């Protein structure tokens, strides 16, 4: 009898095996929610034309490299107010990740690395503990020069830090270099 019961349970399970065979529905596509595709930095002088720096990588972690564009040169001895926008353009309409970064300001910080350019930066916005966030900043230029500026966004850095990437740690969400000239 016991054996028969066992056979029976085997049959039931094999029936299940057949009956739970999937429907042929195709899976739904996943649009990456957190991917950052686009970084735009708008540098607005007190007078004159604004300079726009943009890095756009529409395939996210796909094989294509980001497309980096710089709208023009900076002017000598000028002060620019800088504003950074971060977007996810794989979604439609594009998601503005800047809002999230600013909301979680205690967990984020932008760093500006300048090589070759005669320019300095100052943070323009801060988190609740008065540690820098940096989606807004000021850029001051002096003499003509050429070089590059690198924008790095760190997630969960050590805060406060000494202003260097090495001390801040955390993980890099954005790292983009722009070649620039000051004329």
């Amino acid at each position, binding site marked *: 009898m*016991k*054996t028969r019961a*066992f056979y029976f*349970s*085997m049959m039931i*399970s*094999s029936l299940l*095996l057949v009956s739970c*065979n*999937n429907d042929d529905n*195709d*899976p*739904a*596509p*996943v*649009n*990456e*929610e*957190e991917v*950052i*595709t*686009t*970084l735009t930095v708008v540098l607005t002088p007190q007078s004159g034309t604004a300079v726009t720096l943009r*890095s*756009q*990588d*529409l*395939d*996210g*972690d*796909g*094989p*294509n*490299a*980001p497309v980096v564009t710089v709208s023009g040169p900076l002017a000598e001895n000028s002060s620019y107010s800088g504003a950074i926008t971060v977007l996810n353009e*794989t979604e439609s309409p594009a998601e503005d*990740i800047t809002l*999230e*970064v600013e*909301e*979680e300001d205690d967990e984020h910080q932008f760093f500006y*690395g300048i*090589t070759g350019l005669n320019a300095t930066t100052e943070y323009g916005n801060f988190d609740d503990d008065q540690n820098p966030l940096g989606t807004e900043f000021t850029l001051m230029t002096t003499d003509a020069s050429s070089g*590059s500026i*690198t924008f*790095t966004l*760190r*997630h*969960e850095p050590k805060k406060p830090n000494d202003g260097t*990437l*090495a001390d801040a*740690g*955390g*993980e*890099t*969400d*954005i*790292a*983009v*270099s722009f070649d620039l000239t000051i004329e």
Partner: protein
Amino acid sequence: MKFYLAVLTALWLAPPIFAQDCTQSVSGEIIDFHDKTPLSGALVVVVNQDLQVTTDDKGKFTIKGLCASTIELEISHPECTSQFLKVDIHDKKELKISLEHHLELLEEVQVVGAAQKQKTPSSIEKTVQLGTIERMSGGSLGDVLKTVSGVSSLNTGANIVKPVIQGLNGSRVLILNNEVRMQDMEWGAEHAPNIDINAANRITLVKGAGALQYGGDAIGGVILITPEKMAAKDSLYGKILANGVTNGRGGNATLELTKSFENGWFVKAQGSYKRLGDLEAPAYVLSNTGISQVGGSLQIGKNNFKEGWEAYYSYFDTDIAILRASHIGNVDDLITAINSKQPSFISPFGYTIDNPSQEVTHHLIKGNYYKRFEGLGKLKIQYDYQQNQRFEYDLRRGDARGIPSIDLTLRTHTFSSDFKIDADSEKQLMFGVMGRWQNNEADPSTGVRRLIPDYDKYDLGAFATLEYHVSNQLILDGGLRYDFSRIDAKKFYQRSRWEERGYDQDFAALVIEDFGTQLLTNPVLDFHNVSGTLGGKYKLGNETDIRVNYALSQRAPNASEVFSEGLHHSAARIELGDLRIKSEISHKVAVALEKKSVKWGYSLAPYANRINDFILLEPSGVEFTIRGAFPVWAYRQTDALLLGVDANIYSQWFSKWRSEHQLSFIKGRDETLGNALINVPPVRLQNSLIYQNPTLKGLRVAIESNYVFRQNEFPPNITVFSPEDNSSIVLDINTPPPAYHLLNLDVETAFKLQKNTLTLGVNISNLLDTEYRDYLNRLRLFADDIGRNISLRLKYIF
């Protein structure tokens, strides 16, 4: 039957007892119970000692050099029920032992002891006994198997441990949990086997692909985790194991209860729980490395000689925190991590399991039935179902914070049946079939593109093996197996990736829907694999034998090797599979020369494994995203050669002093490129000195030294552009860490509490708190390995 359980219990209850000198001997004769004829070739094993002899033509045997005054003998014969016997060697009289002629009952009622029937005579097999498993009850399967020469492990920290057999791991190592082939996403380097070792009574390792009944693709080997076999005897017994550890400031506990009946019915329940906080390296806390793990199993069935059945359920759930500092953003973070001596993130000790982490749940349900046919053999049928759920959590922003990045459900149904014709004791023929259906489902609500796609996989297999006892000295074995497997996947590719890989040229027909930036494809891949084995075992005298085995095995690529595509956040790398990957084919020759005697013994086992179209994953270049550069790890196929030798030697210097030595040596070459292979285990030397004094409360003191050499052969590093430095630099990702030496100390003693036994033990691993990093630990780039750990263990049997 009563006898078995009595012995079984006695075995557990009795701590090993040794006398002062090792000059005692015992001799006797073994005869058939039915016709009183002497039984030659019966195996007599001294339980708990590495000592065994076989009877001569007249059924006689003598064991010399015994140390203890009371010993326990296990007497077995291939065609008989094995027996246990307590012997007081001071009696000095000749023993007369009769065995009952029951074909193969041995296998059904196998008892704890040193001798087990080999899965195949010519393969190299090693068994880890219950004592060792219990001593390591707080560890993982990989930790336990590392006590065997030729086995190392691929780790992600200390809690994710994948066994590596003679240089091979993952899908090349089959793990059978109570005869069920584990389907637990073994393809990932950071996916550890979902096994609770506390449910195991014995762990057997078959090196190589010789054990064809379990699968044809075991290029590395087969790991068999066997629960205790139940005896048909009225009894109720239990076991409690508890461990407390300093490193991680936690511990684990196991409770096991067994009830069996005279009529063959049995039921056994077991549960275990483990909880550890952050582990600590000698110099700092390894932040976010805790673990919480629950395991349980229930076994019910009826076990008789002629027929029997069993239903088995096991549950395993593990929640493992992954070193916070290993979660990095891009190649610059990786460079910083490699150059920095310390992890980038250290916080005070805590128990919280934060992200990054993984949570895996595994359910296994099995039912099997066997029946013996007189004068013919034994039929077995089995059905099993497994469900594996894996969540991987990354550090995410905003609303996605609590949502896993990977959410995969793998469901597997397997039906298998085999028939063993063993009426002829000289020739044993076994054949069987297997059918399997597997479904993987990747939940799209993660908001992260699927690393592994949705797929259905179908497997069909058939095998036949023959074991031929040519003479008392020589056994030959051979086998053949065929496997068909089909993967039917629905996968989204990024259009840019599809084109970059050249799939738009080669696989345009696979596209079933165009979503603009993404393409839905339906790859259906078929694989036909043939595997075979041929070997023999030859006895050179009573104590020595030699084994030779050749195995051909073919393995179809797994889902990860074919389909992986995307950024693996936790590893900061882009992993790319390849649709063009085909089966890999291994030709392996293994030889083993082994001697076992009271005073000393050795085993010398060289092997050569040539793998054509070997599938490997290694850094191949760099891709840029807005987050910076990422190393690309791509799967590719090459011809590989693995050459190695596993050597063991032991010596019983004095009655209480024993030493054991082990060397595992392996070299791996990429024959196509002429480079070294990636992730080949470095040479390892293990030495231990054991003092055992049974007259002193069963005191056992063991000191163990582990020396791991530096791996000097590794593939070249890659050069990457660092945006932070604005220049190209060498990414030191393949360079192995220096050699290291660890000392471990273990002290154990047993007390009698009325009829029950309480065993207490202290184990100190990494005694000198050495700072080291291991080449096969994926977190070696970020932090040191764990420091000194003192653990206190308790075992109570009732």
